[in-house]
């Protein structure tokens, strides 16, 4: 076991490398109570379409009785967006329901009425996970429907290169979020087991749990757990200075001590990232055989009497959790899902908890500043040192505002992670993140247009070539026939020359034949006919 407190020099270097902001800490309120289990809500909601995921198709119908842990829906290939019933009960509806996304939209949702018995499906626990082959572990993780948060996370396991380092991201830099901290405080041992399983599954040589220095109780818990389980070789804890945000790229830089070049994707550094929730869910999936049915969610905000962390069943409506914390509805100003710097507002109390719901903030009036009319940019440069990616937000802002797509790509708008640090520090209250989202939309629309037009031009070109080929073939055959009139086959088949008079004769003969036939048929059926049509047919 090793505790990696970097020495003061590299600590300062890490702080310098970690650009960003230091927003005031709001973590204490929800950390006062321990991690709580919650009672069963009456209705649970399982949205089938979520932003950024394949849509899931239901495997059950309204009226079906389901058991806890039963698969309710999955994407067409059965690998993505697995939806499991988080308690036993009856499916009452497949209906449109508010879902957690920034647009406040509704979507197809399975509604489950809990029967209160919490009956499980048959589980297949594995007591001795060390002996399981990596493939078996992976298939267990896949079947558990574990949400993969980031690009260089679990989805890159099949990457050709074997990863060297597994990084468990316990940084949780958002000012309100305490879910990971609360979870580690009470379940450090399970986290270590989960990390060990992940390490075995991906074959990483080292495993590092990265955590920020202000989470002293969680660090202490990890330390104790590491000492108790002496056999956990290869797992280390790395303490980083608390800054917001710490991107995956910065995290890999800090852990490997190098610098990921801009052109190189993070995954190629030989690092695999997983967050705390994922790691815990992996442990449950492999050891107990349980799918991911709950996640730890921070429920906080100044309207709540007792903010706390819940082990929330997936599908629980947000309002149910808020009631458990004693919400003061009169004082409620804004309901935010996700952190205070990257979260989105909710427009309904019925929005369910999903696998990515880290936090619900019921903000009181005055807790978050009311929107202010943005002033003009005075190029004050406050945003430049705040950007964790090293972009130039004020120049990007001008590029987006002037719709200069060349500048947007040149200034690497696509690298923006929308962390909100620049808008947080902007003294003119410019909603920079919104501008950048709009700019990205313009770029992606443009890319789609280019793709479409390339596709169309390719098809047009293919058609033109085909027509030209056909014409050439037809011309070629005719020229051949003209050039070689002595060919007896062609003369015999009557294709030798085109004669107008002979054609007329042939047509007249054909018309006469048809008329003769129709007259015979007309005697039989006595049906009146359109003389025009006769001539044409």
């Amino acid at each position, binding site marked *: 076991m090793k505790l990696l407190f970097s020495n003061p020099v590299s600590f300062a270097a890490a702080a310098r490398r970690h650009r960003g902001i230091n927003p005031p800490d709001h973590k204490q309120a929800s950390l006062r109570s321990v991690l709580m289990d919650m009672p069963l809500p009456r209705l649970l909601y399982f949205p089938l379409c979520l932003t950024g995921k394949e849509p899931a198709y239901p495997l059950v119908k309204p009226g079906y009785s389901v058991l806890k842990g039963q698969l309710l829906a999955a994407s067409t290939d059965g690998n993505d967006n697995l939806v499991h019933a988080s308690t036993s009960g009856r499916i009452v509806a497949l209906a449109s329901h508010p879902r957690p996304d920034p647009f406040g939209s509704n979507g197809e949702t399975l509604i489950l009425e809990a029967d209160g018995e919490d009956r499980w499906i048959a589980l297949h626990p594995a007591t001795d996970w060390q002996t399981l082959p990596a493939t078996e572990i992976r298939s267990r993780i896949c079947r558990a429907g574990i949400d993969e948060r980031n690009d260089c996370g679990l989805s890159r396991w099949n990457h050709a290169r074997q990863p060297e380092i597994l990084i468990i991201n316990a940084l949780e830099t958002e000012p309100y979020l305490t879910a990971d901290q609360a979870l580690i405080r009470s379940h450090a041992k399970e986290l270590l087991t989960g990390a060990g399983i992940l390490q075995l599954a991906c074959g990483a040589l080292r495993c590092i749990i990265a955590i920020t220095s202000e989470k002293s109780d969680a660090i202490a818990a990890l330390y104790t757990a590491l000492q108790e389980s002496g056999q956990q070789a290869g797992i280390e804890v790395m303490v980083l200075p608390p800054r917001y945000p710490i991107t995956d790229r910065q995290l890999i830089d800090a852990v490997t001590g190098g610098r990921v070049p801009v052109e190189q994707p993070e995954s190629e550094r030989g690092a695999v990232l997983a967050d705390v929730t994922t790691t815990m869910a992996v442990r449950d999936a492999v050891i107990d055989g349980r799918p991911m049915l709950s996640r730890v969610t921070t429920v906080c905000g100044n309207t709540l009497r007792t903010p706390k962390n819940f082990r929330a069943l997936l599908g629980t409506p947000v309002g149910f959790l808020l*009631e458990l914390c004693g919400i003061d509805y009169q004082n409620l100003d804004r309901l935010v899902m*996700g952190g205070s710097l990257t979260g989105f*507002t909710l427009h309904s109390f019925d929005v369910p908890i999903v696998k990515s719901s880290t936090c619900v903030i019921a903000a009181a009036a005055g807790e978050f500043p009311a929107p202010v009319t943005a002033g*003009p940019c*005075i*190029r004050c*440069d406050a945003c430049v040192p705040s950007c964790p990616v090293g972009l130039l937000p004020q120049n990007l802002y001008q590029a987006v505002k002037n719709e200069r797509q060349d500048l947007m790509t040149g200034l690497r708008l696509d690298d923006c992670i929308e962390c909100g640090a620049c808008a947080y520090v902007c003294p003119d209250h410019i909603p920079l993140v919104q501008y950048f989202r709009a700019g990205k939309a313009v770029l992606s629309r443009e890319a789609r247009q280019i793709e479409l037009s390339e596709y169309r031009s390719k098809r047009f070109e293919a058609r033109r070539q085909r027509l030209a080929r056909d014409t050439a073939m037809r011309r070629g055959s005719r020229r051949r026939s003209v050039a070689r009139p002595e060919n007896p086959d062609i003369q015999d088949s009557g294709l030798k020359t085109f004669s107008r008079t002979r054609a007329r004769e042939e047509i007249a003969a054909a018309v006469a034949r048809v008329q003769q036939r129709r007259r015979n048929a007309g005697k039989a059926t006595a049906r009146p006919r359109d003389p025009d049509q006769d001539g044409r047919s």
Partner: protein
Amino acid sequence: MTAPPLPQPGFHCSPHQHSGTDSGAMMRLVIYFCLPAVAVSTWFFGIGILLNLLLAVLVTLALEAATLALRRRSWRTLLRDPSALVSAVLLGCVLPQGIAWWLVVTATFVANAVARNCYGGLGQNLFNPALCGYALLLLLFPSQTANWQIPLTDSSGNGISPLSMAGLAGSLNFMLDTASTTGLNTVTPLLAQHQLGNDSLSALLAGGTDWVRLLSPGGKAGQELIGVAYLAGGMLLLVRRVIGWQVPLGVLATLIAASLTLAPVEGLAPFTSVSLHLAGTGVFLAAFFLATDPVTSPTTPWSKFFYGSIIGAAIYSLQTLGNSPGAITFAVLLGNLLTPLIDKIAITGACGNKGTGLP
């Protein structure tokens, strides 16, 4: 669950928190930190300084209100956005005591209406508005702009204090061009210190000078002390993080380095001492208050330092080689002019060629 409907106060986008910094508050700080120098200036040169300031502020407010009306914006912007007032106060700081009122109005008009609002308002101007107004006066009315008329005697020839009611009347007479009082003509704060040498700070520090006469109203230590007041205000701006350290350091370091290294060069002899370049109001006012205007200065740290160095070098060359009283003014305007180019090069460095379209 009997939840009332959620309040729907419009559409909120992340981030939901804000650091609380406000550009209006920062600009107010700039005005506040100018005020010590204004006070010192008034002490030495008379109430006319305050009259200039007041006139510039009033004209700016009127012009700003007219512009807002033309652009069909709410007049409340006038109260929220003190950026126009910053230009007015800085202009009031550089205009000489006793200058005619219509020159103050002209300079303010050029600063606000032409250099600021014709370019598109706050954040769009290429040049520092206050310096544009002042540069126009320097070019068109050099003699009036270079002269500081301090009322030291009243109409009957008795000595008066510039700070007394009689001094106020004298200043008003100068401004209204009904100068029945005789005054002392002296030099401008932003003037090259060609005429200064004698009673300057070095002489003061060497001792043997009449301290009371130097520090009394109308005394010759005025320029140095105003400079010190601007230096103090600039330090406060630095401490409060309203400005960065790069530009002032660039200006002062280049100026000092140039005057130290070029001291032995023949032909520059009278203008080589460091104290001569730093003495006087202009350098500190320019380094801390005028060149640091974020709108007209580059963006990345290194390019800011480079921009400051260009201004420092230009101040040195214009003061030693040139003969214009507006060396500092034109040096800062030169820096403003080069800012877009510096920015392009800096962005190319940060993002590669694609960032700017430069080859």
